[in-house]
C-alpha cells in the first residue's frame, strides 16, 4: 500500500528534504543537504516492528523563495513523505509550515533560527537555537570585549537578518545604554554595493559592526568595509560560518567574529567524534572544502532526530512520528537535543568563532539563560 | 499653425457652407493636411480660431516660447484658448478620413464600422458587460450593416481590414467616418492610389453620399479631374497661404494657381 516497497521488495519510508539549492541561500542549503545525505549514508535504514525499512530521501529545491516554497512543500507532501527536514533560511520554513501542519507531517528545521518557524505550529520542530538567543549572545560578547558602540547592518525583507539584527540591538542597548547603537543601516536583497552604507558606518565610527546576512553578501560587506578603511570589528550570526566567505574575502576576513551552533574541534559527544572523521571524507568525495559547516552538522542532527522519532513511534504514521518527536531525546553532533513545548531545541550554548589565518578558530562558548 | 520655425499654415481663413462640397488643393507641403489636423483637434493652432456651426471649437494664441518665434499675422487678435480633443470634435459631428489610410488593421470591416458607433452608445461599461444594453447593441449592429451595404462592402464584412484591396479600404474608411453620424465630412486625398477609372467612380460616390446623408464635404485632393468635377468651390493653398479661391472654372484659369500647382496643362485632355 501506501508505504509501498520498491521493486526489490524492500520496505521504504520517505523523508523529505526541504532545502534551497538555488537562489539566494542555495549555497548554505546545499551544505545542509550534504549533512543530511551523509546521515542517510551512515544510517540508511530503520527497524519498525521488526521489519527493516529503507529510508529514502526526497529532495526538493525551494529556491529560497517563499512562493516556490509552497509548491515545493506540496510536492513533498504529494510524494508521501512521513517527515520533512529543513529548511535553511527561516522565511521559506515559515511559508511552508502551515502546509506541513495541515498535511499532519512533522518537519524538523536544522538551522532556521527565527522564532516564527515553530511558534504556533505543532508540527514544526528545530534542532538549533533561536535568534533572540543568538542576538543576545553576540551583544554580550561585544560588550564583554569592551565595545561601547555598535553599528548594525541588516537585510530588508529577510526574517533572519532583520530579526537577528533587532534582537542584537535590544540586547546591546540594555547593556551599553540607549545610545550605544550609533548606526542602523539596511540594504536590499541582491544589493551588491554597500559603500554608501559603509561610508555612514565609518562616519559613525562604531567599535563593532554587527551584520547578520547571507553568505552571498558577507564577503562584499567585509571587503568593501576594509577598502573604505573601516577597522571596527565585524561580527555576524551563524550563516557566516562558511568557508566560501573566507575564500571570497581573503585576508580581509581576518578577525571577523561570529556565533555558531557547533565546533568541530571540540566534539561534544561520541556521535560528534565519528561524524567529524567520516564527514570530512564525505566532503572530500564531494569536492568541498574540508571545513565542516555548522549547518551540515545540524542537518545531520535533524536526520538523527527524525530517525529516533520513527524508532520511538514504531510506526510509519506521520502523526505518530510527530508525537514521538515531541518527546525525543538524543545526543547529536551539536550536543544534547530535546524539544520544549514550542518544538524548539533546548539549547543554551553558542560557540563563538573568529576567522584567523584563513580558518574558523574557536574562541569561546557563551551560555545565556 | 507652425512647428518650431516652420510655418505650415499661415493666416488661413476659409469657410465651408452647409451642404457644399469644397476642395482644398495646393502643392505638396502647402499645409492642407495640417489645416485638417487643426480642425479635427489633432494639433492646436498657434494663433487663430476654428468655428463649427458658429461655435468656437479651437482657438489659441502664441504662448511661451512660441511668443518669440511666432511668424504669422494677427498677433494679439485672439486671446482665449479653446482646446477640444479629436474625440470631442467627432462628437460634434465632424468626421474625417486620413491621407495614409488608418483603419483598424487587424479587425474585420464590420468591426471597424461598429467601433465608430461606440461613441453614440449610451450604455456604461458595466451594463454593456452584463449585456443589459442588448437592444442598443442590436441597433448598432444593424446600422453598421446598413452602412456597409450602402458602401458596397457587404460581401467583405468579415474580412480583416488590411487584407482588403486598396480601393475597398478607402471605402471602408469613409463608411467608418459616416458611422459617427457626421454633418461635416473631411476627406484627405480620398482618391490617392486610385487609377482614373476608380477615381471616376469615387466622384459619383461622393455625390451620392452627400445627398444620402445630407453632408457637407471638405476635401483635399490632387486628382484635378475629380476636384474640378465635384467641387462647388475650391481653395488653393501654397506655402501655407491662401493664393486663390472660387468656383472650379476660376481656379482652372487662375495664373497663380497654374504656376504654383497645376502646371502648364500638357495635353492632358485626350
Amino acid at each position, binding site marked *: 500500500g501506501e508505504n509501498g516497497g520498491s521493486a526489490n521488495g524492500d520496505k521504504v519510508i520517505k523523508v523529505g528534504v526541504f532545502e534551497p539549492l538555488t537562489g539566494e541561500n542555495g549555497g548554505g542549503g546545499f551544505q545542509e543537504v550534504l549533512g543530511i545525505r551523509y546521515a542517510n549514508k551512515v544510517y540508511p535504514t530503520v527497524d519498525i516492528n521488526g521489519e527493516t525499512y529503507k529510508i529514502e530521501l526526497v529532495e526538493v529545491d525551494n529556491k529560497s523563495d517563499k512562493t516556490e516554497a509552497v509548491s515545493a512543500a506540496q510536492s513533498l507532501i504529494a510524494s508521501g513523505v512521513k517527515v520533512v527536514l529543513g529548511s535553511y533560511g527561516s522565511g521559506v520554513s515559515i511559508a511552508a509550515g502551515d502546509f506541513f501542519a495541515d498535511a499532519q507531517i512533522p518537519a524538523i528545521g536544522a538551522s532556521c533560527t527565527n522564532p516564527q518557524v515553530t511558534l504556533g505550529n505543532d508540527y514544526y520542530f528545530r534542532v538549533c537555537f533561536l535568534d533572540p538567543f543568538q542576538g543576545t549572545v553576540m551583544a554580550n560578547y561585544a560588550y564583554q570585549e569592551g565595545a561601547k558602540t555598535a553599528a548594525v547592518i541588516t537585510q530588508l525583507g529577510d526574517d533572519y537578518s532583520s530579526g537577528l539584527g533587532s534582537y542584537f540591538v535590544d540586547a546591546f542597548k540594555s547593556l551599553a545604554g540607549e545610545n550605544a547603537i550609533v548606526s542602523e543601516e539596511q540594504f536590499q536583497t541582491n544589493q551588491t554595493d554597500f559603500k554608501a552604507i559603509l561610508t555612514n558606518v565609518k562616519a559613525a565610527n562604531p567599535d563593532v559592526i554587527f551584520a547578520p546576512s547571507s553568505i552571498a553578501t558577507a564577503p562584499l560587506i567585509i571587503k568593501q568595509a576594509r577598502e573604505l578603511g573601516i577597522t571596527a570589528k565585524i561580527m555576524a550570526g551563524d550563516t557566516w560560518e562558511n568557508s566560501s566567505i573566507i575564500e571570497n574575502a581573503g585576508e580581509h576576513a581576518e578577525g571577523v567574529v561570529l556565533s555558531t551552533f557547533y565546533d568541530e574541534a571540540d566534539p561534544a559527544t561520541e556521535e560528534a567524534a565519528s561524524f567529524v572523521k567520516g564527514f570530512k571524507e564525505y566532503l572530500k568525495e564531494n569536492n568541498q572544502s574540508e571545513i565542516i559547516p555548522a549547518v551540515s552538522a545540524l542537518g545531520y542532527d535533524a536526520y538523527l532526530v527524525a530517525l529516533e522519532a520513527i524508532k520511538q513511534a514504531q510506526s510509519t504514521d506521520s502523526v505518530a512520528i510527530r508525537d514521538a518527536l515531541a518527546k525525543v531525546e538524543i545526543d547529536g553532533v551539536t550536543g544534547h537535543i530535546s524539544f520544549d513545548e514550542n518544538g524548539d531545541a533546548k539549547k543554551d550554548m553558542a560557540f563563538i568563532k573568529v576567522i584567523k589565518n584563513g580558518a574558523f578558530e574557536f574562541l569561546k562558548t557563551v551560555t545565556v539563560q | 499653425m507652425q*512647428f518650431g520655425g*516652420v510655418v505650415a499654415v499661415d493666416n488661413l481663413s476659409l469657410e465651408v457652407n452647409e451642404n457644399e462640397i469644397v476642395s482644398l*488643393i*495646393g*502643392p*505638396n*507641403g*502647402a499645409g492642407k*493636411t495640417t489645416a485638417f489636423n487643426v480642425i479635427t483637434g489633432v494639433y492646436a493652432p498657434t494663433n487663430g480660431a476654428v468655428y463649427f456651426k458658429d461655435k468656437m471649437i479651437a482657438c489659441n494664441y502664441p504662448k511661451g516660447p512660441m511668443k518669440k518665434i511666432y511668424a504669422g499675422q494677427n498677433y494679439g487678435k485672439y486671446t482665449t484658448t479653446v482646446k477640444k480633443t479629436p474625440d470631442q470634435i467627432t462628437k460634434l459631428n465632424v468626421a474625417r478620413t486620413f*491621407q*495614409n489610410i488608418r483603419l483598424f488593421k487587424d479587425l474585420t470591416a464590420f468591426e471597424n464600422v461598429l467601433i465608430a458607433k461606440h461613441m453614440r452608445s449610451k450604455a456604461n461599461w458595466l451594463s454593456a458587460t452584463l449585456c443589459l444594453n442588448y437592444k442598443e447593441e442590436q441597433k448598432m449592429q444593424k446600422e453598421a450593416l446598413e452602412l456597409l451595404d450602402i458602401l458596397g462592402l457587404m460581401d467583405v464584412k468579415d474580412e480583416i481590414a488590411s*487584407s482588403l*484591396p*486598396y*480601393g475597398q479600404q478607402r471605402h471602408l474608411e469613409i463608411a467608418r467616418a459616416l458611422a459617427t453620424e457626421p454633418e461635416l465630412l473631411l476627406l484627405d*486625398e480620398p482618391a*490617392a*492610389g*486610385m*487609377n*482614373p*477609372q*476608380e*477615381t*471616376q*467612380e469615387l466622384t459619383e460616390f461622393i455625390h451620392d453620399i452627400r445627398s444620402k446623408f445630407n453632408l457637407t464635404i471638405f476635401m483635399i485632393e*490632387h486628382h*484635378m*479631374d475629380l476636384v474640378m468635377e465635384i467641387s462647388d468651390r475650391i481653395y488653393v493653398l501654397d506655402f501655407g497661404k491662401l493664393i486663390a479661391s472660387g468656383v472650379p472654372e476660376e481656379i482652372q484659369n487662375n495664373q497663380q494657381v497654374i504656376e*504654383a*500647382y*497645376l*502646371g502648364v496643362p*500638357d495635353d492632358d485632355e*485626350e
Partner: protein
Amino acid sequence: MTKNNLLTIENLSVSYGGIKAVKGISLTVPEGEIVTLIGANGAGKSTILRTIAGLVKPESGKISYRGEDITGIATNSIVEKGITLVPEGRRVFPDLTVLENLKIGAYLRKDNLQEDINRVYKLFPRLQERSWQLAGTLSGGEQQMLALGRALMSKPKLIMMDEPSLGLAPIVVNDIMKIITNINKEEGMTILLVEQNANLALRIAHRGYVCETGHITMEGTGTELLNDENVKAAYLGKSKKK
C-alpha cells in the same frame, strides 16, 4: 529587338502565407528603356517589384539580370548589382535628415558623393532648402522627391519605381515624369515603373504590361496600349462605365 534584355522574369509566382499574389508572370525589361507595369489595386504589381528586389522570396520562377540568375538572393547583393527600388509609400528614414537620407542612398559607393548630391538638389530644389530637416516631418510630396533622389544616389543601372506619383500635386507629377524621362534619356538608366496613373505612365514608356489579379493580361508598346480599347475602358477612365 536588338537591345539586350537587362532583366528577364520567367513564370514568377509569389504568395503571402496562403494567398497567391503573383501567379506565373513573365516579362522582360530591355536595357535603356522605360517599361511600365499598370493595373488595378492589388493586382500584384508591388509584389513583383519587391520580389525582384529580393524583399520577398518567390515560390517559383526565375529572375535573371544580364543573363545571371538572381532569384532569391539577398537584397543587398541585388542592390550591389545595380538594381534599386523606390518603394511604395516613400519610406524615407524619418529620423535622418534629408542630407543623410541621400547619403545613405549611396551606402555601397565609396567615391565622392558631393557631385551627385548636387545633381539631386538640382532636380529637387525643395530638398536643398530642407536639407537639415528630419525627413519624417516632410510633406508627402517632399518625401516622394527624397525617395527618388535617394535611389538615384546609388547610381543604379535599373531603377524600379513603385507609384512615384502617389499623392503628388499635378505639377510635381508632371515634373517627376519629366525627370524619369530625363534620367532615362540622358543617363541611359533603365526604368521599371509601376503606376496607377496609366495615362502618364504609358505616354513616357517604351513598353507596357497590364497586370490583373496576379497575371499579365496584355503587353505592348506604350502607344499600343494607350490606344487599346480594353485598356482605355479599364484604366484610363475616359470612356463610360459598361
